[in-house]
């Protein structure tokens, strides 16, 4: 006896199609949120603390290769004081069980829609990510808020002040589930070293929907290069493959946020030219730059820069760093106990879900999830971990200093 319901079903109003522009905007907004990092939500630290975002960089017993901003090129050849055979020809040779650590500074657009009003600004972070070289152990991600910048031609919205403090997150490792989306060194080493095969792979890895294939392929290039390390043969192949994607433009002398110049592969998307900047010789990713080429589509004047990053350091370490603060757990895959191959033989303490090292103020943090959108069961704002760490070491975001012990 569903007559009444059928009456409503049959009488449902026609729905207009989702306008392409609104759809693209919503999707991009989602992607930007995704890039901001796994649920990082403005820990409550004052700017005083944030300015000295207390990062204890203790690369215990590891091989650290410094690639600071002072160096003209992000070559991996620069060896630290103590070095092992891991670096010989300028290439890192991570062993199973070790971690690849990448430090970067980023600036991307942040968009918030509050009751129909869009507020936007450019949020900036310093990121340090540790990923198991062979996906055998969980990784770790540090995101520290840097002072935001206004959207070109607009005042800095009040909410941008929330972008401060730091947050530590566990990155669960589940290579089986990630499959073709793995970004660990062991997996990347298996990618084709031939540009044509690599190009074919890009097409298959993220098959774009209707006419989006080229864009998806270019996105894939960024995903594979960003915060990763792969052997030179694969870097070269991926670089050459990216050049072959329709719409990709090559530009010389493009600067990353650390002022280093490189060769850029760029592609236009929604009014901005999205460039990946590479070291000309090593094809290491230096950074990214998004420049407005269509004011109307981008919502900012032509020539203004809406994203600018720099990967400052890529190194191999034996262990995850010790740090003060709370680690946001990542329960996305079953933890792999004992998988932390600690080649130093020292007892290691990889962070596991919900481990609290020194959590002083787990203050509830304002979330951007509207309260009304928190239903009883499945939907709700995730609790936010506030990493209120007492800064022990202060490092300049522009030139992280690798520390090596052991």
């Amino acid at each position, binding site marked *: 006896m569903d007559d009444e319901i059928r009456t409503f079903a049959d009488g449902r109003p026609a729905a207009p199609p989702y*306008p392409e522009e609104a759809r693209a905007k919503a999707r991009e907004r989602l992607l930007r949120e995704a890039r901001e990092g796994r649920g990082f939500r403005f820990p409550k630290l004052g700017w005083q603390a944030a300015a000295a975002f207390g990062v204890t960089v203790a690369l215990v017993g590891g091989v650290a290769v410094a690639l600071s901003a002072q160096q003209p090129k992000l070559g991996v050849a620069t060896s630290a004081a103590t070095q092992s055979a891991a670096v010989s020809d300028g290439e890192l040779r991570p062993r199973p069980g070790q971690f690849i650590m990448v430090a970067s500074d980023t600036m991307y657009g942040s968009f918030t829609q509050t009751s129909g009003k869009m507020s936007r600004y450019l949020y900036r972070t310093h990121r340090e990510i540790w990923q198991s070289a062979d996906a055998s152990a969980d990784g770790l991600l540090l995101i520290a808020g840097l002072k935001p910048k206004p959207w070109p031609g607009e005042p800095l919205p009040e909410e941008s002040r929330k972008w401060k403090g730091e947050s530590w997150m566990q990155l669960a490792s589940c290579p089986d589930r990630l499959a073709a989306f793995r970004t660990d060194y062991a997996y990347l080493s298996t990618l084709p070293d031939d540009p044509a095969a690599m190009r074919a792979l890009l097409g298959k890895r993220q098959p774009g929907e209707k006419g989006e294939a080229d864009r998806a392929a270019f996105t894939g290039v960024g995903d594979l290069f960003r915060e990763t390390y792969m052997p030179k043969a694969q870097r070269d192949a991926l670089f050459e493959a990216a050049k072959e994607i329709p719409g990709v433009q090559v530009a010389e002398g493009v600067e990353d946020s650390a002022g280093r110049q490189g060769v850029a592969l760029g592609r236009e998307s929604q009014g901005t030219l999205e460039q990946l900047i590479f070291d000309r010789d090593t094809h290491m990713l230096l950074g990214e730059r998004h420049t407005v080429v269509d004011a109307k589509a981008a919502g900012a004047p032509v020539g203004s820069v809406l994203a600018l990053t720099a990967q400052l350091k890529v190194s191999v370490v034996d262990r995850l760093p010790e740090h003060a603060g709370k680690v946001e757990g990542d329960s996305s895959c079953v933890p792999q106990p004992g998988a932390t191959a600690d080649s130093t033989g020292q007892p290691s303490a990889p962070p596991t879900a919900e481990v609290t090292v020194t959590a002083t103020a787990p203050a509830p943090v304002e979330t951007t999830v509207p309260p009304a959108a928190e239903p009883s069961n*499945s939907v709700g704002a995730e609790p936010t971990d506030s990493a209120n760490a007492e800064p022990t070491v202060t490092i300049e975001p522009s030139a992280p200093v690798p520390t090596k012990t052991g």
Partner: protein
Amino acid sequence: MREDRHVVGVQEKPETLDDSALIAQSEIDPERFAVLFDRHADEIHRYAARRLGPEPAEDVTGEVFLVAFRVRARYDRTWPDARPWLYGIATKVVAQHRRAERRRINAMSKVSAERPGSFDDRSADRVTAEQLQPRLARALTSLSAAERDLLLLVAWADLTYEDAALALGVPVGTIRSRLHRLRVKVRRALGGIDPFAEEPQHG
């Protein structure tokens, strides 16, 4: 043949994943969540547009996926299809526009009476196509917000009772009994008259 093997491995995986696996993937690779958007955004938008009209629907759709992204860790992985979950979130987001929805329903419930008889046919068709028939709109005003949510999830989003239970976070039995009460109310509001027979005669 390393490359060949690799390519085969890749082909097995990508877009054939169900929603649940995709959401799991997005925990490690957050940008993967965009695939979920690609899959379901149009449908959520349609639902939002039916309930609130085209303009609010754009905001609502974006908001639904942002909320979903933020709470994806809580997704119940035993459900391969994320639609009920997304509709549950959509229901909450739409609820933030309750006043607007009430205004819209009230307005639509009066359209028929106020519409001039000489109204251009084609434009009248267009108007009615995107609007709810006045009788149905009036019936909707007789329901509570929660009843409206349930009715429209079933009638407009085509959710099964099980899906609706999942979306609203209540047992299926509760859904059945609520629907029963709701039907009685609707029947009374419709006065037992076929709304399709009545409406054109007003024009």
